[in-house]
């Protein structure tokens, strides 16, 4: 460990194995600071609980921390968790980490009542074989807004989704960006936007999603999100009854444009309350007029 003063530490090149609790746990008392901590080039393996765990309880500020170039494997709970339980977690960065064989979520950004988790970056991570979600942004009474999930490769998320955004108990999960991720072989959904309180203004774009046994992209009662330029591929080996992109009837004001969905029983099932580009189903050379030439067209095969 390298450190200069409290609250500004660099943990570099460490290996933590066989912990009966967490690999790294940062959990200050009320009104404490968790700021400017870096964990780099480290390995966390075989922990009973979370691999790397930042907890922002009441009054705690968890900001500007970095977890980079780490390997986290065989954890008994979430591999990397930043939890704005009742405090503020913001502007943290998780980059170039490899997470695998996780008995829980790969990367979890959470907020509880009175808590917030915003402006964080998760990028270029490899997440493999999680028992629930690959990445979970969950606002339960607080807010989980304005985060970025980018360039991640997520495969074999068991039980739930490759990436899930969810809100409940008057919480908000808004304005997050998921882009250029590759998501494959999730047990249920590739990406799930689950609105039980507020899930709006999120953007899902330029992702490659191989559908799991259920649905490639599922928008559950959420509003004003944008689903754009994703490629959703149904693989019959993983579920012949699957749907490519599905927005439930309770969803509204979502924009679904320029996607391609191929190989599902139903490629697109979009709520009438949403806006979507025309669905082009033909094969062969595209026409230069009509729906096939529409700039917002979705392609279905």
């Amino acid at each position: 460990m390298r450190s200069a003063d409290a609250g500004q530490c660099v943990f570099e090149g460490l290996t933590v194995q066989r912990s009966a609790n967490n690999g790294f746990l940062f959990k200050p008392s009320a009104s404490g600071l968790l700021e400017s901590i870096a964990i780099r080039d480290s390995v966390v393996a075989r922990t009973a609980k979370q691999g790397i765990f930042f907890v922002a309880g009441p009054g705690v500020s968890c900001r500007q921390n970095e977890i980079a170039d780490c390997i986290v494997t065989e954890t008994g709970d979430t591999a990397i968790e930043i939890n704005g339980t009742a405090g503020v977690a913001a502007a943290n960065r998780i980059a170039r980490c490899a997470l695998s064989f996780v008995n829980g979520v790969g990367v979890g950004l959470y907020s509880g009542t009175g808590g917030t988790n915003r402006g964080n970056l998760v990028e270029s991570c490899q997440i493999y074989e999680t028992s629930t979600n690959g990445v979970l942004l969950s606002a339960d009474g607080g807010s989980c807004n304005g985060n970025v999930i980018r360039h991640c490769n997520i495969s074999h998320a068991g039980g739930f989704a490759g990436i899930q955004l969810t809100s409940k108990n008057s919480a908000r999960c808004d304005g997050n960006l998921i882009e250029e991720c590759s998501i494959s072989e999730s047990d249920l959904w590739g990406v799930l936007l689950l609105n039980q309180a507020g899930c709006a203004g999120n953007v899902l774009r330029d992702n490659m999603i191989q559908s799991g046994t259920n649905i490639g992209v599922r928008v559950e009662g959420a509003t004003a999100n944008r689903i754009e330029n994703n490629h959703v591929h149904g693989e019959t080996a993983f579920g012949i009854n699957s749907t490519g992109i599905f927005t439930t009837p309770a969803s509204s004001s979502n924009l679904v444009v320029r996607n391609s969905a191929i190989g599902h029983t139903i490629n697109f099932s979009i709520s009438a309350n949403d806006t979507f580009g025309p669905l082009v189903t033909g094969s062969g050379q595209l026409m230069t007029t009509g729906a096939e030439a529409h700039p917002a067209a979705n392609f279905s095969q």
Partner: protein
Amino acid sequence: MKTMAQVEPRTPIEGGIITNEIVLGVAGSYYLTGNINATGTAIRIVKENITLDLNGFSLTGGATDIGVHVDGRPGAALGNVTVKNGRVTGSSDQAVQFDPVSGQCSGNVIRECTVSEPFFSCIYIVPASGGQCDGNTIDRCTFSRTDNGSAVSVFTLGGSFNGNVIRGCAMTDLSSGVSLSGSTGELRNCTVADCVIETMGGSGINIFPPAHGNLIKNNVIRSPTDQGIWVASSTGNRVENNHITGTGESPDSTTACDPPMRASVCSKG
């Protein structure tokens, strides 16, 4: 086999509390070995071809000055400067300042930095008369926590800010996200793309004269108190494919964009 020192000689910069600014005046590659707490400006860069690897550490600014000052003093030609891989926090002025007084600050890169808690803006660029600040890149940074400035604030005072790129950044808890404006000079052909901007006191992105021909693309903007994207009295800019929700006011454009708000989605949350 060559060692790292042979491939890229690197000069360490010791951490600690400093009372005099560290001046990087010789081209080369530098890296921090610890956090630096400065009572004034932490690091001033006055020479081109410098790479400053913060190495995961923090520069905490002083009572009266700047975290990293890329100082394009008269006659200087500061190019190919890279600042990367760490934190700049707590400055009582701007966190990072590009300052081409009448020299050049062009072709520089700020990459993968966490910039927070300056008194004013996280990155502040003021091309004064005769100064050039062109072709710079601000890439995959996080900006947060200032009540008095923007994540990136550009104000041309007779100089140029042309062809710069701000991309892939996350911005939160700021008075505004990106501000491109000036009194005189040029502010052209810049790109703000792929950023997520959340919870500001003001606009997400604003473009004022003399801005012209800039591209605002693929950004996600949420909950600014004012406009999501505000284009005022400037021409030839392109605002495309942004997603804006929860704005206090509707996106505003007193002068039409070209083309106007193409494929943008705006809704009040």
